[in-house]
Structure formats: C-alpha cells, structure tokens
C-alpha cells in the first residue's frame, strides 16, 4: 500500500524462527523492486523473536546502503519492549502512528 512517498507494509501475527524466512523474502522482494522509502506498520505484530529482529536489521542495512529510508510505526508496548532491550529502538525511526511516520 502506498501512503504518500512510503510503501507501507502491514505486518500481521508472529515473526518467529518458523515465519522469519518468509518475512525476509517478502521484504527483500519489495526492496528489490526499487522501493527506497518503506514503512513497516506493526499494528498487528503480536510476537517477535531474535529471528524476526534479524530481518528488521537486514532490511535497515539494505535501505541505508541505497540511501533510502525505513520507518517503523505502531509497535505494541510488549513488542516495543523487545526493541528497547535489543538496542533496536536507537537504530530505527519509530513512530506512534502512520500519520506521523509519513508526515515528511
């Protein structure tokens, strides 16, 4: 879904060791299509493990390497906790809602 300049990807359910591979393939496919501004909408992300965090980091590295922008929005508090513990909150631009995330 396109929101202003951003290609918004809605993530639903669990990203664990079983699902992270599919998630990574999907994200890489989108990035491979030339997307430089991506928003990961995590409103419906209910669980994430290190396998999922890994994919977020891989995506961030790839986008930074091409001079693009990756933003994350709408993390549930329990998921935000895991981002905080991992130090991922400082390596991603995290917004509370879609509006703020796509405002510039």
């Amino acid at each position, binding site marked *: 879904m396109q929101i202003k300049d951003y290609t918004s990807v809605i993530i639903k359910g669990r990203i664990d060791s079983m699902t992270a591979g599919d998630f990574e393939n999907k994200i890489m496919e989108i990035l491979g299509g030339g997307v430089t501004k991506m928003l990961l909408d995590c409103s419906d992300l209910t*669980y994430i493990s290190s396998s999922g965090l890994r994919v977020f980091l891989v995506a961030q590295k790839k986008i930074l390497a091409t001079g693009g922008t990756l933003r994350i929005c709408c993390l549930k508090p329990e998921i935000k906790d895991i981002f905080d513990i*991992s130090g991922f909150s400082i390596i991603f631009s995290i917004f509370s809602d879609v509006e703020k995330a796509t405002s510039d």
Partner: protein
Amino acid sequence: MKRTITLSNRIDELTRISSFLKKCADQWGIPAPVTLSLNLVMEEAFTNVVQYAYSDNHDHDIDLIIKKKDKELEITLIDDGKQYDPTDEKEPDINLSANDRPIGGLGIFLIKKTMDNVSYYRKDNKNHLVMVKKV
C-alpha cells in the same frame, strides 16, 4: 506444580511449545505479558539447540520443563547435544548504529534480559539450561 513436554529437534516444534505454554498459562493464571516473555525465551533457547547442538542427522529428544513455585516460574531445557554453555556468550553491544550492528547474536541476550536468573550445568551428558522469572 510442574509440566514437561518432550520435543524433537525440529523448528516446527515451536507450535507445540506455544500451545504447551498456553495450557500452563491458562491453568496457572500466568498474565499475558509474562506468557509472551516466556514464549520468547523458550523459542530462543530451543531454536539455539536445534540449530547448533547436533552435528548428526538423527532425531533427538529435547525436554522442556516448566515449574511454578511460590513467587517464580522456572523453565528448564534439557538436550543431549554437544556441551555448550550459553551463559558464557559475550553480550552484543546494543549502542552500535545499524551499519555497525552485526547480524545475529541476540537470542541468548534476550533470554538473559527477559529472565531474572539464567544458569547452566552439564549432567549425564546433557545440557541443562535453567531460566527463572520472578512473578
């Protein structure tokens, strides 16, 4: 109170781990955020064993035990893989930028940060990882 589940060394056993945990949580009245944390540490510990503990292609039994004590929940994972003490792992530097952050190395760290105490011992040629959360 104590429950045990015996798992095979396959990643798709995570589905059984989740439903096992859910059953315990429902019966023992474990709050949802704690259950989520326990699910995370169970996945990280189990995935680590499945991916790194075995160099053969055989099936192995891995025991997952959850105990509810007065003021704590104790999770123990027992595997017959090669000797490995995850509590020895160096912690990742969480202050690095995205470019400098290495991929991986977060699983054990998440276990240590999520739980109040994590200990390891080797007994009868098996690895025992004991993870305690105060409730």
